[in-house]
């Protein structure tokens, strides 16, 4: 489990290895403060939706998964529905999480509030579930570790990019490259740095 956790933060980093969650990564990384907020929100939603989707996959959608309803359901295969079920879970969960936080912790809601609806369409969350299906993790513990690790890796990436961008404001960049152009190149260079983790075998 620890292997999966470390691996999903550094080696299989969502941003640098798979370019997932790029849109909000580029859009929200202007200051460190907001990027921490979004990062925490992503981790939060990730550790809820990935295990829930895993349970749905295991007990509802896999070929023969419905056999607990009786032997006549043995042949049912609903796996073609997985995209739709995942995205519905994610949309419902973000809504639910938003309501729960609003009710119990207004201060946390105020700091995360605007980011939660954005997360429903963040590819990192959906990709968490899709990779979970593709890699065939064995039990819920491993799935939880993957969800936590991938969220943490994403947060690490966005916070470090935001820190670099805050410093970049003071540097002299050719005018056409200013703003988004240089951000792309910086991300590319950060990705190169992260590739040095590739040699680690766990």
């Amino acid at each position: 489990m620890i292997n999966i956790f470390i691996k999903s933060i550094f080696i299989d980093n969502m941003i640098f290895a798979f370019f997932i969650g790029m849109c909000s990564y580029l859009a929200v990384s202007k200051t460190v403060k907001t990027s921490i907020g979004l990062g925490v929100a992503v981790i939060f939603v990730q550790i809820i939706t990935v295990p829930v989707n895993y349970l749905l996959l295991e007990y509802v959608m896999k070929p023969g998964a419905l056999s607990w309803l009786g032997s006549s359901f043995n042949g049912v295969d609903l796996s073609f529905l997985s995209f739709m079920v995942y995205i519905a879970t994610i949309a419902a969960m973000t809504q639910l999480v938003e309501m729960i936080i609003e009710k119990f912790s207004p201060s946390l809601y105020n700091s995360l509030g605007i980011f939660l609806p954005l997360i429903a369409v963040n590819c990192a969350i959906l990709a968490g579930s899709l990779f979970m299906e593709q890699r065939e993790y064995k039990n819920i513990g491993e799935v939880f570790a993957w969800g936590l690790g991938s969220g943490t890796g994403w947060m690490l990436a966005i916070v470090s990019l935001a820190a670099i961008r805050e410093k970049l404001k003071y540097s002299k960049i050719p005018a056409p490259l200013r703003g988004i152009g240089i951000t792309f190149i910086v991300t590319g260079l950060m990705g190169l740095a992260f590739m040095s983790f590739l040699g680690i075998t766990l």
Partner: protein
Amino acid sequence: MSIFSSKNFKLLTEPLNLQNPVTVQILGICSALAVTVKLKNAIVMGLSVLVVTAISNYVISLLRNYIPSRIRIIVQLVVVATMVILVDQILRAFVYDVSKQLSVYVGLIITNCIIMGRLEAFAMGNKPWPSFIDGVGNGAGYAMILIVVAFIRELFGSGTVLGIHIIPQSFYEAGYVNNGMMIMPTMALVLVGCIIWIQRSFNKELIEKD
């Protein structure tokens, strides 16, 4: 209404340059970068996105007066997810090897911001036919960037275009080596950065102000 009035024509051509979804609106980056190692994958991915954007734009535009605004995101996601499931099944049936290489990125078309962005910004407020054209235009703008990046990466990274060797054997004998950097995912980011640079130095109005 004529099929291609000048306004509709503009909807089709603007996303190719001045309103390009990838380099100007910065939408749909995730998949744009990950599938560009081989030109063939990029073409398939570009076409899939084009089809999904165009048709879901059309469908949402037909439904736009019946969708309660509070649940519109879920309705949009369901329409898009249906289209993506169709595309995914078609890819699996006809180009299985490409579909295997695209792996999760086909599923990620659902959350591709280009699609959601166009649905929100255009299809919810316009008639079906212009929405369809807008979808085609944005899909094409996306596909164009994908194809340019994939062409450069495949040519320099593996010396091939669409799997056919382009760089002649004599070059390798003279000491030419394929650039392994190009195959790595990070080079895609740097290439897109350079495309943005070139595009903005031709279109000065796109330059960001501090």
